[in-house]
């Protein structure tokens, strides 16, 4: 199965208005920058981006373009805002969140990781202690009043747990270091972060890779994301960016 497509444009060709798209990356690290720029270029609108830890903070140039193009409906993240309040006030995304024109739903990072894992593994819902004792236990945390749905809790043993649900995106845009033509992927160091789990969670997974190789170059024990999860592979230049969110 040769899953290589020839351009990032072709790779995102079927991403439609209103799509729910998983965006990995931990701040600057492991963000699928080439695919995200292709999304900007394509101009699809009404998008929901489901993140893990601040790729839109780490790749603020892309965030800015998406906001200024009016492409975003909603972002789900654990760390969606700049830490600095003064920098946040100048950020188009935060401005849109303040204006209520983009929804920001905030969740604990591990709960997000687990919700993707649940979607990948056919688990509709699970119980977690994370968030008990905070507002996360009571409701969905979002800037849009109407969407603050109540949460369900249950006691097991002597402790209280929150019921959390699988989060299954339509697409995942992945950044990998090496990918073979069949879709087996490996990652470089901490650029792995949310990439693998999002690849397993989405209905359609599109991987930009720095090096495309023939099957067999990646040894069976070195594959991190097995090919079954990956639908398209496209070459992307090694991205360049400053390692900072300040």
């Amino acid at each position, binding site marked *: 199965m040769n899953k290589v497509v020839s351009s990032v444009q072709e790779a995102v060709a079927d991403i439609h208005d209103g799509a729910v798209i998983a965006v990995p990356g931990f701040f600057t*690290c492991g963000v699928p920058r080439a695919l995200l720029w292709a999304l900007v270029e394509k101009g699809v609108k009404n998008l929901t981006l489901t993140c893990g830890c601040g790729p839109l903070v780490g790749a603020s140039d892309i965030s800015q373009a998406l906001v200024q193009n009016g492409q975003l409906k909603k972002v789900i993240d654990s760390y969606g805002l700049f830490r600095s309040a003064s920098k946040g006030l100048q950020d188009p995304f935060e401005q849109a969140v303040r204006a209520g024109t983009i929804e920001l739903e905030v969740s604990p990072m591990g709960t997000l990781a687990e919700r993707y894992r649940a979607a990948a593994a056919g688990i509709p819902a699970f119980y977690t202690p994370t968030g008990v004792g905070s507002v996360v236990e009571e409701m969905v945390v979002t800037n849009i009043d109407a969407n603050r749905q109540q949460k369900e809790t249950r006691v097991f043993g002597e402790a209280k747990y929150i019921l959390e649900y699988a989060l299954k995106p339509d697409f995942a845009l992945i950044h990998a270091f090496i990918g073979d033509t069949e879709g087996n992927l490996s990652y470089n160091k901490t650029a792995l972060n949310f990439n693998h789990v999002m690849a397993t969670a989405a209905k359609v997974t599109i991987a930009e890779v720095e090096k495309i190789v023939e099957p067999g170059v990646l040894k069976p024990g070195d594959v991190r994301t097995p090919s079954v999860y990956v639908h398209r592979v496209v070459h992307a230049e090694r991205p360049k960016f400053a390692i900072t969110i300040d």
Partner: protein
Amino acid sequence: MSEATKKVKVRFEGLPREMIALRVSREIPEGSYVNLGIGIPTLISNWIEGRDIVLQAELGMLKTGPLVEGDEADQDLINASCQAICSLQGSSFFDIVESFTMIRGGHIDIAVMGALQINARGDYAGWANPSRGLLVGNIGGSMDLCAGARKLFIAMEHTTKDGETKVVNELTYPETTKGKVSLIFTDLAVMEVTTKGLLLREVAPGLTAENIQSVTEPKLIISPQLKEIEF
């Protein structure tokens, strides 16, 4: 509790942030697996060289190494504060699910977090400052660490830049967790959360228990072994 009553009357000269971090490091036993939050906790990493302490970073790394700069920086190797670091002999990389399995499943011995406010019951607020005027904030991995780490320490300044105490009777900021903090390290004092209230164990050099009480809302229990913070 109105804003006015929270203002402390006198400001004391306390420890610099680096020394708070040093004091926390002394409370971490050899053989511990530890996660350090953003802010003062991150500075603890400067004090553990040569010690048998392993640091975990949420983004997917165990045994994180020191910061690196310039040409040595690798864009694919950062810590959870988005700083370039290096790996060590015995380090490992893993994905976010494994990372939060460690954190949520009770495998991390100690998490050290910063805080905006803390009370005598060990509740703390750290993820959202209402003064920013937003109903949302950055939770990151903080609530996961609160739920999963075996022990939770807070390392922070005792008062805000505006002179308000952060050690309060009731949290006015959104809670991160309830009842999980065991030790509080500030520039002025070391306090232990006990079932009877906050136990004042150590004070910064030159300060008295009365000084600490004057910038602390909850009534402190003074340890019979009260002493100066030692390093």
